[in-house]
């Protein structure tokens, strides 16, 4: 089917889903939601694959909006990338929903959830295929409000409404910024169509360009969770229903990234490197702050939320690096950076969706999300543990999983900075590279903590001791995502050419050749690989599997000039084979060495304690304490001590209460000053309200007089 009819089919399915939810009794809604959701996801995947793999595109006018223009949709390879990723996460989340939302039955209306989710799907599809700013903004606003409604779904909980309103306020500010930016763009050119904006954006003055860039970047940055505007994210993720948290992290976060990517460089090519540099620096700061707070956090969902900030930061940093390279004229390297960025975005959606579903399973199975009170779940929930481990390995960037490929490529791309001809930018690249490397290291710490504290050791609470494995419908989607994580990790040479289809229109150059040399088909392709180069790599084993596998090869390799023939190279596919061989060899060696020997089995060494209480074991707080101490300047905790003593004899204390409070650095630096300024301003205005009608009538009269004077002055001036 053609992508445009598939998009219309998705919209029809969403409408049908809403209709069914309305007429069916609430107890059927769970199943219907999952079925229709999976159908929508399947259609979306087909549309995305059609756009991306077969190179199709479409343009379709939907509706003539009175006085403002035509609402139209358009599909290209970039939409295809985002549609495919969205489809996979949506599929997993829909299947997962059948089991997970059972607990809401009779408490919260599942009908409401189903309607919101179908409408959200429709609005997301429209955002990803919008061809004009009007439709984009309308669907964006719909998406924002639906996100708020979904976050606020469990409204009976104490902290939910607060987090929801925080999110809504921030996203509305973001939407306003984006709307202003679109108005600025539309003012300069023919109208609201993206194509018209693109044609005229080059003629805009630098001031307008910068304003547009900043508005768009920070406006979309709200959804993407970028540095100064992300304080809503951990809170909202922490209270959202488990199904929706996966969608928040795997889909709506990408929409923010999509907005930025669609505009720069697609819609508004930048000819100075500074906006790209700003993106790189903001991304790096988001990444390091995100992972620092994630490592410190003990609530599993909030930990994953902070880690989403980190990953979005990496994606944006890579994209910013690409923009800098593009502005400097290094198209190939820019293309590499863009591919890396999209790759990491897709990876993040897959493994963060997986991890959030895993966290949801942990909560369903044990009723607990506090890592200090979990532990030992691997014995009670082996499948969840396995899939969560796969997700943790992916996000910690360990081969052969997918996180490794994109993080490795990110750092390699940043190391191409010597090609830039400005010293300041080179220094900034080096610093950002160092920050991102530190981020990668902390990510390992963070996810060692997340996995080991939840699944290993002994259960630290009664709930964790009585945990039960989740049903098949909840395990299967996690399994699918875990498998895809592995696949994206071991087949980068197939993913990179696919992503190249989306990137090459932006850089006007194909990057596949620079990253995936055709070791499998050196004769057929017109690209030149020197004979001795092939021979050298043949001896290293780069042509293993040549006759069996399609495609260009299994080695990611960037070739340089004569001086350094290979700039960087790796192959996770062959690494996987070697890893498996090593594992098997170790197992066999251990087996061979232990045959014919007496094996004495005793209990685990517990330090010789009489009885090992689970309370005595290592906790999540203890594990992350070194990070907390080292980065105390960032966390900036305030400690208060309250001594409770008898009033007669003051020196006899009955209790000392010590409290440690931490405010997120973004709230501390950006939000608290703004809020207090607004407060004092409104107190100032409140003095006008004296409650006397005469006074208010006086105000009206005064305003009228002032307005008249103002208008008359304008007339005189003209």
């Amino acid at each position: 089917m053609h992508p445009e009819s598939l998009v219309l089919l998705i919209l029809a399915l969403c409408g049908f889903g809403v209709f069914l939810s309305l007429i069916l009794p609430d107890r059927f809604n769970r199943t219907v939601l999952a079925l229709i959701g999976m159908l929508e996801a399947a259609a979306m995947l087909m549309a995305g694959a059609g756009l991306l793999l077969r190179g199709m595109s479409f343009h379709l006018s939907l509706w003539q909006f009175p006085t403002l223009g035509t609402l139209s949709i358009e599909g290209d390879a970039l939409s295809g990338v985002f549609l495919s990723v969205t489809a996979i996460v949506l599929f997993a989340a829909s299947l997962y929903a059948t089991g997970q939302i059972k607990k809401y039955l009779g408490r919260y209306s599942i009908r409401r959830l189903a309607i919101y989710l179908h409408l959200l799907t429709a609005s997301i599809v429209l955002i990803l295929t919008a061809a004009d700013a009007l439709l984009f903004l309308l669907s964006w606003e719909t998406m924002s409000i639906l996100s708020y409604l979904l976050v606020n779904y469990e409204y009976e909980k104490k902290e939910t409404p607060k987090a929801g309103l925080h999110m809504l306020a921030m996203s509305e500010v973001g939407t306003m910024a984006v709307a202003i930016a679109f108005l600025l763009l539309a003012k300069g050119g023919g109208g609201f169509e993206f194509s018209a904006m693109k044609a005229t954006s080059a003629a805009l003055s630098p001031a307008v360009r910068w304003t547009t860039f900043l508005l768009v970047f920070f406006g979309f940055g709200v959804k993407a969770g970028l540095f100064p505007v992300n304080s809503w994210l951990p809170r909202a993720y922490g209270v959202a229903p488990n199904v929706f948290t996966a969608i928040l992290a795997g889909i709506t976060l990408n929409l923010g990234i999509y907005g930025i990517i669609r505009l720069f460089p697609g819609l508004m090519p930048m000819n100075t490197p500074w906006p790209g540099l700003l993106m790189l620096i903001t991304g790096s700061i988001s990444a390091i702050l995100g992972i620092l707070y994630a490592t410190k956090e003990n609530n599993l969902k909030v930990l994953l939320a902070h880690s989403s900030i980190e990953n979005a930061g990496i994606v944006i940093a890579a994209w910013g690096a690409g923009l800098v390279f593009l502005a400097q004229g290094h198209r190939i390297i820019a293309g590499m950076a863009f591919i890396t960025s999209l790759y990491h975005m897709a990876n993040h959606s897959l493994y963060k969706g997986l991890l959030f579903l895993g966290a949801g399973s942990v909560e369903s199975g044990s009723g607990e999300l506090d890592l200090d009170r979990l532990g030992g779940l691997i014995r009670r929930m082996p499948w969840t543990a396995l899939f969560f481990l796969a997700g943790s390995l992916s996000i910690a960037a360990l081969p052969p999983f997918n996180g490794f490929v994109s993080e490795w490529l990110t750092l390699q791309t940043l190391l191409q900075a010597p090609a830039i001809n400005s010293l300041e930018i080179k220094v900034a690249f080096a610093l950002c590279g160092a920050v991102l490397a530190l981020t990668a290291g902390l990510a390992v710490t963070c996810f060692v903590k997340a996995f080991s504290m939840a699944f290993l050791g002994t259960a630290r609470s009664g709930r964790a001791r009585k945990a039960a494995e989740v049903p098949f419908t909840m395990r299967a989607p996690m399994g699918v995502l875990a498998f895809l994580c592995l696949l994206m990790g071991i087949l980068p040479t197939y993913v990179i050419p696919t992503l190249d289809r989306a990137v090459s229109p932006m850089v006007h150059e194909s990057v596949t050749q620079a990253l995936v040399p055709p070791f499998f088909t050196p004769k057929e392709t017109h690209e030149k690989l020197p004979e001795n180069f092939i021979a050298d790599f043949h001896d290293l084993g780069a042509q293993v599997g040549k006759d069996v596998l399609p495609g260009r090869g299994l080695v990611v390799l960037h070739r340089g000039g004569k001086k350094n023939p290979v700039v960087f190279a790796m192959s996770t596919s062959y690494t996987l084979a070697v890893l498996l061989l090593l594992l098997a060899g170790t197992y066999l060696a251990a087996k061979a060495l232990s045959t014919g020997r007496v094996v004495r089995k005793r209990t685990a060494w517990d330090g010789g304690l009489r009885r090992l209480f689970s309370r005595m074991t290592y906790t999540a707080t203890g594990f992350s304490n070194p990070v907390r101490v080292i980065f105390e300047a960032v966390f900036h905790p305030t400690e208060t001590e309250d001594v409770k003593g008898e009033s007669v004899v003051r020196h006899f204390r009955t209790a000392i209460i010590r409290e440690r409070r931490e405010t997120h650095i973004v709230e501390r630096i950006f939000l608290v000053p703004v809020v207090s300024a607004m407060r004092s301003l409104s107190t100032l205005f409140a003095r006008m309200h004296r409650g006397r009608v005469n006074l208010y009538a006086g105000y009206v009269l005064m305003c009228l007089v002032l307005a008249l004077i103002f208008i008359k002055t304008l007339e005189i001036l003209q």
Partner: protein
Amino acid sequence: MTKWILKGLATGIKTTAYPSVPETAPGVSPGRPGTTYFADKDMELIKHCPAKALFGKAGSVRVDYRRCIHCFQCTRTEGYPSIDWEDGFEWASLAGYPERDQVSITPLGRPFSRSVHIRIVDAGACGACMSEIAQLGKPYYNFHRLGLFVTPTPRKADILLAVGPLTDHMRLALQKTYEAMPSPRRVVAVGTCALSGGPFGPSFISGAGIHETIPVDFSVPGCPPPPLAVLHGLLLAAGRAEPVPLKSRDSARDNPGKEVR
């Protein structure tokens, strides 16, 4: 800092060369009563030993090193023939408990000749033995030069070095430590308390030594044994030293009349 370096260079290496060169420095050992045994008609001297380390056998007084706390009472009690005071420190030997088959006790042997890992358990000691053991890691004795290392987990330990009379609270911990060690493993009991309970045991809080709970292979008597005696015991367990035969006892047995004064 330059001063320190220059001073250090000027001082040179002061570490003892034991066991390749016999230790001759004064004061490395407090000494202990010699194994001379002599006829004592009334067995009066035995009553003066506060640790009950002296015992009479066939009309002679003998010393039980598993109980001796070298308190000098036997040499300084007036009106009695004094016991010889023996210097030296190579006191370690196979643990001579009747319930343990002596033949089955062997040192660790060749694979452990250059790398031995030791797990130390303080089973209720007063602190003297531990402070002497702590000396082994310091520059003068420096037992790392011999490939002896302290490990924090019994999973990697070859030798269990136990001190103290084994209080009831430490009994399970010591047993678990022993069970957690992979074989081949050897147990070295250090100090009078670990060998016999010493001044503390047996009593309502502790037993009469380590051997009641786990099989002891090698013993290092002394209260506390000097660091070199502990080192000798460790080398013995590793199979890199030989127990020194009690010469004086043998000679005394050959001509018992000589000791009577």
